[in-house]
């Protein structure tokens, strides 16, 4: 055994004032736990909004300028149109400020050979953010040129070979019901559509280099209406229609809820801090004799400061880690309850998000612990050794 270690003394000492130390640890557990729960709930809700928003599809759609365009509509929401735009429109739309994502789609034609006429739509898998989110089961890769995705009411199972305009396509996936024209549609890649056109297949409406619409995702911080205005202004050859504003609404609602929760946590912290300070100060007062004794054994002011500061940090770290761990477990166990309480769908945040939230909660608790431990540590270090010994005897 070598020299006595300060850590041994601190950790053994923590066993002494069990209830008091437990109270300090509980305070930090509560702080870290509430921070983590707030952060995770918000991340979960935002994740749900993001996913839901993706499933809701684009915020707006740009279609060829034509008086009948509205009534003809396009694809996922309405009926196919025979009007086309040059494919360069996609780049112009994507370059518009406030546009975060854009995906081109083209009405290829309607295959009358199927029991119910099959609307064939081409899309570019690399740009897609709408079809993918409608898939009944995760594809995990881009659609190939010899593959097709079938709407909910189109006959065909995954792995089947189906004929579209006389060409063989393998069914790679099926879409969830949308109650829109997508239910009766088949989706192929833009390259596959071009191949059909180049092969001179009969009955196609589309021509090479043409697209029917650009589906647009707007930057929520800019606002859908503003982005719609930008796209219309910068692309005079298109008509832009908003599709939904629900995502923005939920986002705003969540932002308010988030502010409310963080405010609650701030209040919790503000209430806890004086309590922690009081407990720490009591601890220093009760240990005056011990402080005096340590000083008589050669402990400097710096030693005493380090010991009391470290003790505060250890207690806080133990409390914060326990609180954060308990909060994480509770979140997983009671996700449904939280979801009902907040009246919003919660999606588990990514592992990275969770880790970041965990670290953030523990870090904030530790920063608070450092602040709270500072005063008692200073008090302990500045105590006159003789006074400490004398007053400790009383």
């Amino acid at each position, binding site marked *: *055994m*070598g*020299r*006595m*270690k*300060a850590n*041994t*003394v601190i950790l*053994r*000492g923590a*066993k*002494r004032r069990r209830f008091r130390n437990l109270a300090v640890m509980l305070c930090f557990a509560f702080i870290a736990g509430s921070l983590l729960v707030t952060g995770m709930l918000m991340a979960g809700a935002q994740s749900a909004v993001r996913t839901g928003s993706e499933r809701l599809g684009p915020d707006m759609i740009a279609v060829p300028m034509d008086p009948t365009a509205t009534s003809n509509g396009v694809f996922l929401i309405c009926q196919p149109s025979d009007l086309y735009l040059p494919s360069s429109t996609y780049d112009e739309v994507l370059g518009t400020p406030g546009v975060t994502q854009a995906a081109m789609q083209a009405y290829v034609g309607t295959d009358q050979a199927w029991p119910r006429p099959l609307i064939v739509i081409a899309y570019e898998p690399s740009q897609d953010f709408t079809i993918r989110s409608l898939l009944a089961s995760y594809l995990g890769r881009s659609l190939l040129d010899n593959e097709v995705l079938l709407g909910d009411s189109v006959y065909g199972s995954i792995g089947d070979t189906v004929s579209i305009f006389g060409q063989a396509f393998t069914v790679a996936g099926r879409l969830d019901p949308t109650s829109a024209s997508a239910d009766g549609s088949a989706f192929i890649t833009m390259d596959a559509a071009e191949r059909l056109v180049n092969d001179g297949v009969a009955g196609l409406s589309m021509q090479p280099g043409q697209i029917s619409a650009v589906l647009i995702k707007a930057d929520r911080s800019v606002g859908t209406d503003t982005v719609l205005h930008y796209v219309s202004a910068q692309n005079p050859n298109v008509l832009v229609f908003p599709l939904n504003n629900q995502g923005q609404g939920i986002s705003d609602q969540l932002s308010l809820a988030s502010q409310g929760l963080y405010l609650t946590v701030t209040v919790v912290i503000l209430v806890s801090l004086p309590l922690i300070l009081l407990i720490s100060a009591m601890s220093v007062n009760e240990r005056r*004799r*011990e402080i*005096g*004794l*340590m*000083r*008589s*054994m*050669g*402990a*400097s*002011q*710096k*030693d005493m400061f380090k010991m009391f500061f470290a003790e505060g940090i250890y207690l806080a770290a133990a409390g914060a880690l326990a609180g954060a761990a308990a909060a994480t477990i509770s979140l997983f166990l009671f996700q449904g309850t939280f979801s009902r309480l907040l009246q919003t769908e919660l999606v588990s945040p990514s592992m990275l998000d969770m880790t970041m939230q965990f670290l953030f909660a523990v870090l904030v608790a530790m920063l608070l612990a450092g602040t709270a431990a500072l005063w008692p540590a200073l008090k302990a270090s500045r105590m*006159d*050794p*003789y*006074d400490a*010994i*004398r007053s400790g*005897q009383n």
Partner: protein
Amino acid sequence: MIETNEVMKTYETLSGRITALDQANISIKDGEFVLIVGRSGSGKSTLLSILGGLTRPSSGKVMLNGKDLWAMNDEDLSEVRGSELGFVFQFPGLLPTLNTLENVMLPTMFCSKVEEDPSERATILLQTVGLGDKLDSFPNQLSGGELKRAAIARSLMNNPSIILADEPTGDLDVNTEKEIMDMFCRINKLGKTVVMVTHNQDLACFASRVLSMERGIVSEEEGQKCERI
């Protein structure tokens, strides 16, 4: 060697200024066993704490082996306290969460001028004070006399040249008191300077020199040799 020069200690209270130590001029040579006797409140503990670098005098100088104790910064003063001085108080001051061996090793946490293994040294010291079978015992398992002996062993841990004891037998029965005093005599015979504060005049026979204190004023007394020394 410890020397004080016109050392004063005053306290400001609501009822006015109190002089705990009034122009103390004492000189303690290496290897002496000095007893400071006086009634409660005479200022003897204050003097001892000033000699031990525990409380700052209001004025005057304290020279320890030629070094002005109170001219040092906190780090240096702490180093002196840890390596040159050993303290024994009326309360044993063992930490309840550490066993006897660990308590005796405690001073090595802050400084250690002793080269031998701290655990071995602490064990030997505890054996010397008759606690060789209590190494793993915790303070609540020791008697008053055993606690005091453990505190004495702890004061010797860093092999200091001076032992400062403040009423070390204050709360002990007569037999244990003699036992503890014998121990201090043995320590003194090892060449260490012992400065002890007590209100018990009967202990004067154990010391080589007795200083008397009254109302903060120190005066020399004739010592009476005990039969056992």
